[in-house]
């Protein structure tokens, strides 16, 4: 019984992990039992043999430097509360400085009419049908589109009718009525009203004056002055 007890605890005894009552008991038994003492000695030999055999190797130097480098990088980019706060503030400032709303329907339409106005001026292709007679222009639109907007003659008001052409707004062919005022050309793009109301715009000296009348949007595009465009708007409504 004593031997069994001792053999169960012999490893802990050898490793000095036994509490003193048990250790004293084991020690007392070892003093009188040769067999158990042999077992302890065998254990100690084994322990020594393992320590001798299992050489301790050094971690590869490359591993050490690699870990130091990686943790150094992580350390540099690791965000403490202050760093996070600063990063957040910088982010907010950047958003405020550079944020542009997603182009709205109106922005895209204005982009369309501006670029076509510029193309028409720069290529000299002002009109598809050249005439100062509203009837001829309306007939041409009806022929091309199946309908025609009203084309008022505004000569007396200083806006000379030049003609008409087809424009492209959001993929649809639309009538464009062309006037001239003080050597400057004015395109009026005429489209069905969209969901949002037409807006005015200024891009690099070219103005867009927009208005809505009976479910139709009018966009007068010109490098004429905004006040002249505003006059045209007024006369157009009176004489349509």
């Amino acid at each position, binding site marked *: 019984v004593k031997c069994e007890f001792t053999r169960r605890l012999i490893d*802990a005894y050898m490793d000095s992990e036994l509490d003193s009552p048990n250790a004293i008991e084991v020690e007392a038994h070892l003093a009188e039992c040769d067999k158990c003492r042999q077992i302890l000695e065998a254990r100690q030999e084994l*322990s020594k043999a*393992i320590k001798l055999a*299992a050489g301790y190797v050094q971690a*590869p130097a490359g591993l050490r430097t690699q870990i*130091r480098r*990686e943790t150094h990088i992580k350390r540099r980019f690791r965000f403490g509360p202050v760093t996070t706060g600063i990063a957040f503030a910088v982010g907010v400032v950047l958003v405020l400085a550079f944020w542009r709303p997603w182009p709205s329907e109106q922005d895209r339409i204005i982009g369309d009419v501006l670029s076509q106005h510029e193309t028409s001026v720069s290529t000299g292709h002002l009109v598809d049908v050249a005439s100062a007679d509203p009837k001829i222009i309306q007939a041409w639109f009806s022929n091309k589109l199946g309908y025609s907007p009203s084309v008022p003659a505004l000569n007396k008001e200083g806006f000379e009718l030049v003609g008409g052409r087809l424009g492209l707004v959001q993929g649809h062919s639309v009538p464009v009525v062309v006037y001239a005022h003080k050597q400057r050309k004015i395109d009026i793009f005429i489209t069905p009203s969209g969901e949002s109301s037409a807006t005015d715009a200024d891009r690099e000296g070219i103005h867009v004056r927009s208005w809505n009348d009976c479910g139709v949007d009018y966009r007068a595009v010109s490098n004429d002055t905004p006040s002249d465009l505003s006059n045209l708007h007024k006369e157009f409504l009176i004489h349509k």
Partner: protein
Amino acid sequence: LFRKELDEQFEQEIMRHLDAAYNLSLWLLRDPHDAEDATQSALYKAFRAFGRMRGNDAKPWLLAIVRNECMDVLQARSVRNRLEYPTEEILDFAETTELDPEESAMQTLDAQTVVAAINQLPPEFREVIMLREIEELSYREIAHVIGKPIGTVMSRLARARSRLQVMLTAGGECL
């Protein structure tokens, strides 16, 4: 400021146990390349968790991370092996030792045989042997590393040593 202090602490308390971490990995995985990988990823985990380390037992704390990393690798390996060699059985050590039955004295054992015997132990036994004999951790520290009660450490260590003795004396002396 606080972070810099933490980094210096990491260097002092954790990096100085890198050799221990590497040796444990090497003994558990028995492959220098795998051991290096496991040590590296364990050290990164330790680095991230270092701020949360409780107490001042840095060595067992680190070795616990290393040990878990290695066990994951071993598990992945055993899954792979089962898939690749589904019928292969684990070899009985007694058949593979080249010990002369008459040569039973421990002193005459050469290092190679001892290492081979240790390597034949299942990883659960191998780790307690290494932690005790090589790292000379206390039972309490070993318990921390393997995440088991001290009683388990004690019985595992006893069984591991008995098994080694059986292997090394080729059945000469049974315990």
